């Protein structure tokens, strides 16, 4: 059963029916958890955990990261459950397990709810309830606020919904300290303002896909030129925010240099996107690719500079 070939045009979650016994493999369930998104979530959470003051036993740190990873996987599975109809209409997502018919919607829903519940409860019981509460809120935000509410109703979907992807460093920090402060909020803001230019650069060269699925992303609703201007505006907010951890003394010279250099490249690529005219899409593709490297570089340098020494000291203690 493939919803792609059947040209399904229903809105909202597909209804699970009683059919053939499931052919879903372990690989299909892993795909439901969006492993590539999960790896970025784990990495940013690790940075939040490593730069936080105080100590956390390595086993507890591993437990926290495992719960955050599983929680992110749960959110991914619930997203695929609800979005199966639109996933079937888009080239990028049509081969996901639910639209392909390998996993039934009800199975994806049960899988997501089970994983999410386990992740939140285990994080609370074994680490602390502040981190657990933040993880629960992140899953709720991604599934209910972004996927069910905003994604199909406003072109600002990714701006507000992007907050869900920005929470993991705060969860990592809270796992160590049991509280929050300005530093994890800065990390949150960097990812929050990074998400729109990253996603809109992708949407610029996937506009037809989103239009076919009737998802109101910015290029579909406001047009190409407006999206390019918005990308530039967000980059101009993002770059100073990227430098901020160094400017306020949370990070050292290596981070500062990296953030300024990477920020200059982001600004240059954003400028190229602004000057690009459809059907050309090279600048958009370049910005999309570099934006991933930008976020990785900033967090990796922060991890090396602030976190790595702290982690080694904690392991040695």
């Amino acid at each position, binding site marked *: 059963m493939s919803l792609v070939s059947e040209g399904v045009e229903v809105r909202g979650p597909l209804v699970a029916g009683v059919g053939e*016994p*499931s052919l*879903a*493999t*372990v690989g299909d*369930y892993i795909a439901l958890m969006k492993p590539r998104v999960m790896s970025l979530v784990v990495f940013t959470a690790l940075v939040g955990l490593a730069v936080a003051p105080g100590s956390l036993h390595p*086993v*507890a740190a591993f437990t926290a990261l495992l719960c955050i990873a599983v929680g992110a996987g749960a959110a991914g599975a619930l997203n695929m459950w609800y979005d199966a109809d639109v996933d079937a209409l888009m080239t990028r997502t049509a081969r996901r397990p639910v639209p392909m018919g390998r996993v039934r919607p009800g199975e994806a829903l049960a899988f997501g709810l089970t994983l999410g519940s386990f992740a939140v409860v*285990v994080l609370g019981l*074994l680490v602390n309830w502040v981190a657990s509460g933040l993880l629960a809120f992140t899953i709720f935000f991604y599934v209910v606020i972004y996927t069910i509410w905003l994604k199909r109703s406003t072109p600002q979907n990714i701006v507000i919904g992007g907050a869900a992807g920005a929470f993991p460093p705060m969860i990592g920090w809270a796992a160590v300290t049991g509280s929050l402060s300005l530093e994890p909020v800065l990390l949150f803001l960097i990812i929050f303002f990074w998400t729109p230019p990253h996603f809109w650069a992708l949407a610029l060269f996937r506009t037809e896909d989103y239009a076919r699925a009737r998802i109101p992303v910015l290029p579909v609703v406001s047009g190409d030129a407006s999206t390019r201007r918005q990308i530039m505006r967000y980059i101009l907010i993002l770059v100073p925010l990227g430098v901020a951890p160094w400017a306020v003394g949370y990070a050292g010279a290596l981070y500062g240099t990296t953030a300024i250099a990477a920020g200059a490249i982001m600004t240059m690529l954003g400028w190229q996107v602004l000057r690009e005219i459809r059907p050309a899409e090279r600048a958009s593709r370049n910005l999309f690719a570099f934006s991933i490297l930008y976020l990785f570089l900033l967090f990796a340098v922060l991890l090396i500079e602030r976190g790595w020494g702290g982690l080694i000291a904690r392991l040695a203690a």
Partner: protein
Amino acid sequence: MSQNPDDDGIVLTEAQKRARRSRSIAIALALAALVVLFYAMTLVKGPGVLIRPI
């Protein structure tokens, strides 16, 4: 209510049996990992794990 002796119910194909077996093994491994995790964290927390406010 009588049952038809020829009715064998749902008979799984070989592919379905393989898929079910792999899922069952994955669930077993996940549960075992959870047990190990709770055991390890109990050791990490030490006697403090028994001190709970009433």
